[in-house]
């Protein structure tokens, strides 16, 4: 094996490590009011965290952010059909994720999921986009319970989806950021509360 091959592989490995660490700063541990737990992503608007509907069955949740600080959050919008929920915290959170365009993904593009599978904090999984990008992204990746609601990023570290379902051995689905965009723009979803302070 040539030195070039080894250093090329090492570069990729180091880059994945850096990517996982950086993305993890914007991923929170979500504990729902009914004993559920999963992950959430600090979105690029103050006080907003996106997770899966099924991670937060109740109205309230507790978030653990990078560094271990715990904050209370409430569900302000949910769309069960998309499996999305928007959480609001008091004030704002640092380390927001960079949101990318899921429609620009090609089949075979590298994706990394960062979440809290089985309660393990910020565990990365490596995979690819398995079929053409749509409302839901089909992935060749190994995910476990607790990855739900976390970050799915492209090779540039931009959020392209929210992992929400395991469909087979090494296969999973994520809600695309296209769907999250529609959800946040009010095109879908049910408003949980009457007054939304961020309007």
């Amino acid at each position, binding site marked *: 094996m040539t030195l070039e091959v080894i250093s090329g592989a090492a570069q990729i490995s180091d*880059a994945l490590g*850096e990517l996982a660490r950086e993305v993890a700063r914007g991923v929170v541990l979500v504990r729902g009011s009914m004993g559920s737990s999963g992950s959430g992503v600090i979105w690029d608007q103050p006080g907003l965290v996106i997770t899966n509907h099924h991670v937060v069955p109740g109205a309230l949740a507790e978030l653990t952010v990078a560094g271990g600080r715990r904050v209370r959050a409430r569900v302000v919008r949910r769309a069960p059909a998309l499996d999305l929920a928007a959480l609001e915290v008091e004030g704002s959170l640092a380390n927001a994720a960079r949101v990318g365009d899921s429609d620009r993904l090609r089949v075979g593009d590298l994706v990394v999921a960062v979440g809290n599978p089985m309660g393990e904090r910020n565990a990365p999984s490596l995979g690819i986009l*398995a079929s*053409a990008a749509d409302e839901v992204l089909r992935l060749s990746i190994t995910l476990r319970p607790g990855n739900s609601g976390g970050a799915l990023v492209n090779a*540039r570290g931009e959020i392209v989806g929210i992992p929400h379902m395991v469909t087979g051995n090494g296969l999973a689905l994520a809600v695309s950021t296209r769907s999250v965009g529609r959800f946040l723009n009010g095109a879908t979803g049910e408003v949980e509360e009457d007054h939304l302070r961020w*309007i």
Partner: protein
Amino acid sequence: MMLVAQVEPYTCSMTLSDTSSGVLATLSDGLANAVQRAGRSVVAVHGRRRFPASGLAWRDDQVVTASHVLERDSDLSVTSSDGAQHPARIVGRDSGSDLAVLAVQGASLHPIERAVGGNLSAGHLVLAVGRPGTPEPIASFGAVSSVGGAWRTAQGGLLEAYIRADVALLPGLSGGALVDVSGNVVGLLSAYLAGGDPVAIPIDTVDAVVKRILTGGSLRRAYLGVSTQAVELQDVLRLRLGLEQTAGLMLLGLEPGAPAERAGLLLGDILLAIGDRTVEDGEALQMALGPDVVGKSVTIRLIRGGDLREVSLVPAPRPN
């Protein structure tokens, strides 16, 4: 109602270094390009009731696919990467190696580009690429787990080699391509040969089977019409007969009219070798009864009544 309108863009703090971003973007583009490149030569094969499976454009008017995805013999078609659907017919198939060749008259398919050099080994990154009736190819990603030699498939076929890889088996990937990171085809995927585990037949082995199918050569394995039990040979017997092998196969049953009975084999005979292959267990017997010995006279070495004997017989093709 707008949930988050009129909010100033929030400052994102994720800072991936240019180097890392570049390295990973290059890898990502490389993988996506490999899928696109291989995808030109991966077609959808319509030959079963559920969703379609995949196939490889072997020539511009010929497709090789997994035999098990053809659940009917007629009303077959393939959809090429440009979306055109063409009627197809079976030229030949071999269920033991789970391969079938389809003629696609009038099509101008884009034949696969094969990986050159046989240096694929455990740890190499690979992609599984299929097209189960979708406009875009589908793909899964993993590493080669092992590359091995001759093996007997779950269907009783004998194949020269195999590739195992930890690629996820998306529905409809059977008949598709296992490709290297450049998009060159290293094998044909089957979810059937190894009982649901992802396994690929190396492209050179596919080539050999396709050639046999196209030249009408028999792919049916040889048949003696015996049931056997492996037995250890007593040391005293081995010493007296000058044998190195420590076990043989005792005949417990003989099918009336089958080659073994017709050649005069008797219950209690202990088979030692078929041609130049020693048979110490049932697996070795199966390996010795490949398609190459069908219809040819072979010498069987055996022990009868404590003495060595040789009997010639002609194995028949295995009944279906």
